[in-house]
């Protein structure tokens, strides 16, 4: 039975869906890019507000599929804030091109709805539903500009996401065959922690492969550079942030049932994935001339980093992972957002050459981009630094020395290409001086806000750390 309380808890999701419908009806009357973008922004803002209004009612399960607690609320807020930032940045981006722009906002709302469902899901059905809602909308978003590269990227994402969904479904089926239930923790706590049966192990293994695709971990990362490059910059930002945060939230909820003690097969497998991601991601990023490709490989490495506190486990590990994801979300939104602000739908400015001497032409934008890259490199007074400290700290507590060694090695390799970008930004302008595009006030405002949040996280991380620690159910 649904009660009024349940509906209040579902209100953020309902609002997202409602505004998608309102925007669609608006299009039926008259096409207006401004109107649909406004609808999307309202949807995101109201959904965030509705989520926080429901705080006194938490925690509470709804229909056995979803479980609303402070963790779900925090992750949903991050996802929706990312969605809001993407929708604001994409407005000017889309205006700088031909074709219709209205459906973009609707797809963005639906993708965010899927991600929000993931953050609250405690049941394989909800997990799959959320994931498909997210993924199917992303097909459309990636191919939205209808240029060659984005068609290719959309197609690649379609095929590989379908494969990963198949892995995921088969894994779920195997786990269901063993446990007889489609719900995940806390219902599965009765499982013997130390020995998983081969069937269960195979099931979880397949699910990790499926999740690995979404998180772009090595060796499931092959789609990442092409999709990051081909997708329009705001969508790349969404894939890098909201989509990954949502899937990682599910992974964190699943963690208690994976029995990840050192020595267990899943622990060994995930450690291997983490080490490979950290090293391969950073090494492959070294020679990239395309900023979006570079950031794609960098994101592989960063998700490898987040696995370190995840494997460390405990509330310290989980809070470090969540803090890292939040800092990474802010940073990635800033980095891809800058690319989007400087680009248009027709053509992304994603070659390293485009950024040569940016500091002397557009100091403000260059400053944002440099700080974002410094944050990715983990330099102090940025959020990326504090996040890395929290992450290494969790690893040290759990004595994961091998993973930490890979992390240090990966970080040093990573410095090379982050420095390449910063060097390009601050080098004298090249012979070909491209005229700057007309900058949008909205996009610049979002970038300034992201910069402020990032520095705030780096200087005074206390409040957010407390919030994260208070919202962990595990």
């Amino acid at each position: 039975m649904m009660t009024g309380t349940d509906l209040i808890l579902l209100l953020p999701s309902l609002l997202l869906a409602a505004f998608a419908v309102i925007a669609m009806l608006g299009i039926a009357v008259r096409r207006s890019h401004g109107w649909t973008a406004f609808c999307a922004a309202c949807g995101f803002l109201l959904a965030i507000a509705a989520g926080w209004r429901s705080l006194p009612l938490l925690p509470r399960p709804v229909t056995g599929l979803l479980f609303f607690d402070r963790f779900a609320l925090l992750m949903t807020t991050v996802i929706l804030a990312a969605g809001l930032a993407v929708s604001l940045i994409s407005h000017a981006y889309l205006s700088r091109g031909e074709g219709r722009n209205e459906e973009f906002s609707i797809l963005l709302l639906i993708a965010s709805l899927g991600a929000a469902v993931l953050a609250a899901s405690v049941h394989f059905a909800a997990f799959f539903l959320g994931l498909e809602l997210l993924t199917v909308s992303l097909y459309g978003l990636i191919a939205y500009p209808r240029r060659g590269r984005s068609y290719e990227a959309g197609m690649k994402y379609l095929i590989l996401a379908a494969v990963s969904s198949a892995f995921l479904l088969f894994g779920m089926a195997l786990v269901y065959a063993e446990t007889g239930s489609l719900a995940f923790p806390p219902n599965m706590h009765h499982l013997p922690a130390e020995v998983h049966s081969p069937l269960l192990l195979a099931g979880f293994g397949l699910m990790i492969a499926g999740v690995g695709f979404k998180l772009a971990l090595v060796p499931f990362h092959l789609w990442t550079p092409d999709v990051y490059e081909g997708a329009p910059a705001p969508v790349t930002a969404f894939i890098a942030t909201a989509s990954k945060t949502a899937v990682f939230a599910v992974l964190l909820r699943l963690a208690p049932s994976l029995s990840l003690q050192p020595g267990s097969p899943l622990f060994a497998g995930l450690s291997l994935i983490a080490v490979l991601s950290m090293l391969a991601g950073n090494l492959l990023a070294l020679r990239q001339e395309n900023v979006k490709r570079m950031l794609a490989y960098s994101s592989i490495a960063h998700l490898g980093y987040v696995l370190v506190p995840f494997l460390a486990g405990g509330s310290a590990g989980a809070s470090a992972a969540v803090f890292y994801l939040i800092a990474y979300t802010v940073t990635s939104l800033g980095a891809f957002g800058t690319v989007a602000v400087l680009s248009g739908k027709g053509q992304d400015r994603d070659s390293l050459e485009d950024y040569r001497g940016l500091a002397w032409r557009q100091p403000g934008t260059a400053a944002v981009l440099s700080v974002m890259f410094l944050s990715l490199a983990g330099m102090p007074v940025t959020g990326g630094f504090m996040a890395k400290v929290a992450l290494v700290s969790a690893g040290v507590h759990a004595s994961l020395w091998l993973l930490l060694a890979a992390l240090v090695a990966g970080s040093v390799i990573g410095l090379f290409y982050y420095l390449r970008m910063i060097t390009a930004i601050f080098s004298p302008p090249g012979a070909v001086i491209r005229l700057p595009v007309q900058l949008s006030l909205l996009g610049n405002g979002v970038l300034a806000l992201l910069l402020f949040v990032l520095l705030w996280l780096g200087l005074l991380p206390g409040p957010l750390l407390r919030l994260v620690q208070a919202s962990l159910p595990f």
Partner: protein
Amino acid sequence: MILLWLIIVPLIAGPAAWAFGRGANSLSRWISLLALAVDGVLVLSLWQTAPAPGSSWIAELRLAWIPQLGIGLHLAADGLSLVLVSLTIVLGLASVLCSWKEIGERVGFFHFNLLWILSGILGVFLSLDLFLFYVFWELMLIPMYFLINIWGHENRVAASYKFFLFTQAGGLLMLLSILSLASVHQAETGILTFDYALLKTTSLGPAASLLVMLGFFAAFAVKLPVVPFHTWLPDAHTEAPTAGSVILAGLLLKTGAYGLLRFVIPLFPAASAAFAPAAAALAALGILYGAVVAFGQRDLKRLVAYTSVSHMGFVLLGAFAGSAAAQSGAVMQMVAHGISTGALFIIVGLLQERLHTRDMERMGGFWSLAPRLSALGLVFCLASLGLPGFANFVAEFLVLAGSFPAHTAAVSVSAAGLVLAAVYSLRVVQRVFHGTAAVPMLPDLDARETLVLALLAVAILWLGLQPGLILHPLSPAMDGLSASGVLAGLIK
């Protein structure tokens, strides 16, 4: 609060210099000078303060920063910090003055970087919270990278990468060590803290202690530099603009030495004692290697860079000698090297400004062309070779005499470094200032340049004749260092 203001003044003046310097270049120069002058006045007021009885700390400040993680804004100054902070401000002033004409592009951003490096260095010398220390340690990196990368010479990009990667790799190992230390302390006492005084009481097992100590040592050894980790230094020094070289040689290398004296030895006394013979051997190797390679250079700036490797070997030797005399000598060497090498880099910079080359084969006979420049050059070459009367002599003598009981063999070998120093220094004098004139004309120093170099010359002579100026305020800190059982067992 004075300690906090010392750091904040350049931190605020940096953006101001950038913002106001967009229209008028000299405005950002004057803002930088003003900020450093304010810091100078603040430091002078600290010199007047005597440490509280029973403690070596002259001033201390504790503020909360991130209480959840046990991170505090804990600043403190004792004799050691005070001496190095003063050196920072003096060399900071010198580097602003010496780039007055050299830097003509993006002047505002240049001074922004300069002031932020100085702020980071001041923070390093004053932090007593290990986390805060690490933040400042990293903070000085990025502006230094920009300084080399934007205003450097021909191979500036490669040099700046190398500098950044070496220091950052060492820094990450130190971060691991800091977090491990805090983690062990938390397991022992249940308190998560990064405070120096509390972490000092942590008891680690011998093996763990050595590993954690090596993490710190890696970061400081790269900065110092200790010989196998020194390869970034000649490139970075050679390619950096004059002010960058002055700060690199005069101050950044000192942060490594300071880290050894402030953190490695007091935090890990037993592990340091076990490691001391190896450190002494590395020091002797560095002293000889730096001197020999310096002798083989054609590029004057590269030569001076290699002499730094040699001179900083004495600091390493003294730091791990376990006697107050040797450790005071090490600090003296830091100051003396900071001034004399900084001055030599300024002279090289002035020559390059005038000749557009650093190649010694194309120099010669400058004594007749530019007597003031040459005379001052001679003074600093003599200081660098350790002539009695200069601070360098006092420093090297104290280090060698103080280390002799603990590291007899290493000291015997290192003493040869003094001879080699005379060889390379006199070669510079002979090549550059004597002989027949290699160029038709060379403008002599103007008033600003004379002022900077003359002040540095007076300083190094004064300290050579009155070493008590530094050794006296230093003694409580150094006595505390060696009396706490640190390494004292080494002296039979």
